[in-house]
């Protein structure tokens, strides 16, 4: 698969296979997926919807058990939820009956630990949510809810942050703002991040590497290095290199989806275009 690394990976996925048993028979969601995530790296996983991105992430988090293969964190196989892993879910996933403070305290309550007030205050300040502690999720905008979810995930100081299409439901401006926030947080903490998204721009902006998955069953189709320096300014993101990389990844995903024989069709339309006066 990807280039063999001399270092032991922070998170190693080896031939991960996942079969769901559904009413209409077995569903192969992941088929021998392998990838390594190094410490302090941001790796994005992109792919068409329904390609098993979320399944892969949930397996990394220990929420799902693999049918075959293994996922290893710091040299230890993942068999269940681990405290070193923080998750940011789709659509924030805050508990609506708790205010923001209580939502952020939730992990500590479950673990029976005292919340690290200073760290939480620092995080809240970092994401611009100080003073909102007594607000309920319904009183916060989508972006603010997702900021709170990030604070909740980071509150336990995880060494790996798994983010499952966290900004998919946000408008594009808020989304860019959130991407910058993730970059800032990463520059601060250097937390290893696995980021699932269907936005190629988002993946390139955030990642050291972009992993493209195939449609169901999910396999690793390609891995791209994203060598651009950080912080990635608007100027960097507007360069031809970024544009080319975006297109290459897009071609991978679209090509993956295109049914056989459609290439000839594509040529025909091209011809028609040429013939027209």
């Amino acid at each position, binding site marked *: 698969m990807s280039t063999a690394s001399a270092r032991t990976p922070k998170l190693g996925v080896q031939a991960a296979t*996942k*079969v*769901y*048993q*559904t009413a209409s028979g077995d*569903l192969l*969601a992941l088929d021998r997926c392998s990838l390594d995530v190094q410490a302090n790296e941001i790796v994005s996983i992109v792919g068409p919807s329904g390609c098993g991105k*979320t*399944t892969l992430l*949930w397996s990394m*988090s*220990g*929420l*799902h*058990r*693999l*049918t075959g293969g293994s996922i290893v964190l710091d040299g230890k196989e993942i068999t*269940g*939820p681990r*405290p070193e*892993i923080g*998750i940011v*879910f*789709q*659509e924030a*996933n805050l*508990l*609506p*009956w708790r205010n923001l403070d209580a939502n952020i305290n*939730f*992990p500590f*309550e*479950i*673990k029976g630990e005292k919340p690290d007030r200073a760290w939480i205050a620092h995080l809240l300040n970092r994401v611009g949510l100080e003073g909102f502690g007594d607000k*309920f*999720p*319904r009183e916060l905008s989508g972006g603010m809810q997702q900021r709170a979810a990030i604070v909740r995930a980071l509150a*336990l100081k995880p060494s790996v942050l798994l983010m499952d299409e966290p900004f998919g439901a946000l408008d594009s401006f808020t989304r860019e703002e959130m991407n910058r926030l993730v970059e800032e947080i990463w520059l601060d903490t250097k937390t290893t991040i696995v980021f699932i998204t269907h936005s190629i721009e988002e993946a390139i902006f955030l990642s050291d590497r972009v992993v493209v998955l195939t449609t169901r069953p999910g396999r690793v189709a390609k891995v791209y290095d994203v060598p651009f320096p950080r912080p990635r300014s608007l100027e960097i993101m507007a360069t031809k290199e970024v544009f080319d990389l975006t297109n290459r990844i897009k071609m991978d995903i679209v090509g993956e989806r295109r049914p056989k024989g459609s290439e000839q069709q594509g040529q025909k339309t091209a011809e028609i275009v040429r013939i027209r006066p």
Partner: protein
Amino acid sequence: MSGGDAIPEFSKAKSGDGQDVSLTNLSAFASGPGIKSGAEVVAILAVAVVIIGGIELALRIFHVPQYIMPPPSSIAYALFDEFPLIAPHLGYTLVELLSGFAIGAIVGLVMAAVITQFPFAEKIVAPYILILVTTPMLALVPLLILRFGFGYTPRIIAVALAAGPMVMINAATGFRRVDSAKIALARSYGASTLQIFWKIRAPMALPMILVGLMIGAIFGLLTAVGAEMVGGGFGLGNRLTSYSSMIQMPQFFAVVLILSTLGILIYVLFFLIGKKWASWET
């Protein structure tokens, strides 16, 4: 074990289990008589004065006899005059209602919490619960009186039987609302089954539990009064039959007034609890 996982599902439409089409959702709390401004209160009072005054006037003008419909003024007078005599009966009814409701609500809540953990068992039990919900438990009162006599016992049993299934069926709807993402969140921090129940399932079910408790309490009041009318020499229901048999209509309506006040108090109580603890729903 790996096959036991469900495909991660975030779509809101699927996260609930028919919660949106339930007969009694929280709209009872959301769009209840939330009186906001003083002007609204004045308007409501003004309407009351007009209606009561109108009835009073009409009854006096047309010389409607007291045994058909007593005027509001004599009902009010009877309420004050007879209250010392009615009060102990109010106490008896409250004892029946509170103890029967407490038993029914606790049993109903525990059963709902347990049964929803076992979907198969729930499917088997569901039709029987439906029978319990739809059968008017008043029908059993004569039988209960035969078995337990004219004391508190048959009435408390009847109230518990009326309230319990109402609480259970609504609470079960609440407990069935599993949100896999929220449970996954708790599990990702290593939450135990018990923690998931108390910190995710119970709060998610609370709005429906409150609806169940409110309906259960009102059905309990209904059943308590009905049971008192069937037999036994005490309770507000007994006062109703006794006053009507003696054609003491002002006193009769005074008791009716007390009963409707009780019903409204039950509603307002749960409305306030819902507003405080379950308003996140809306």
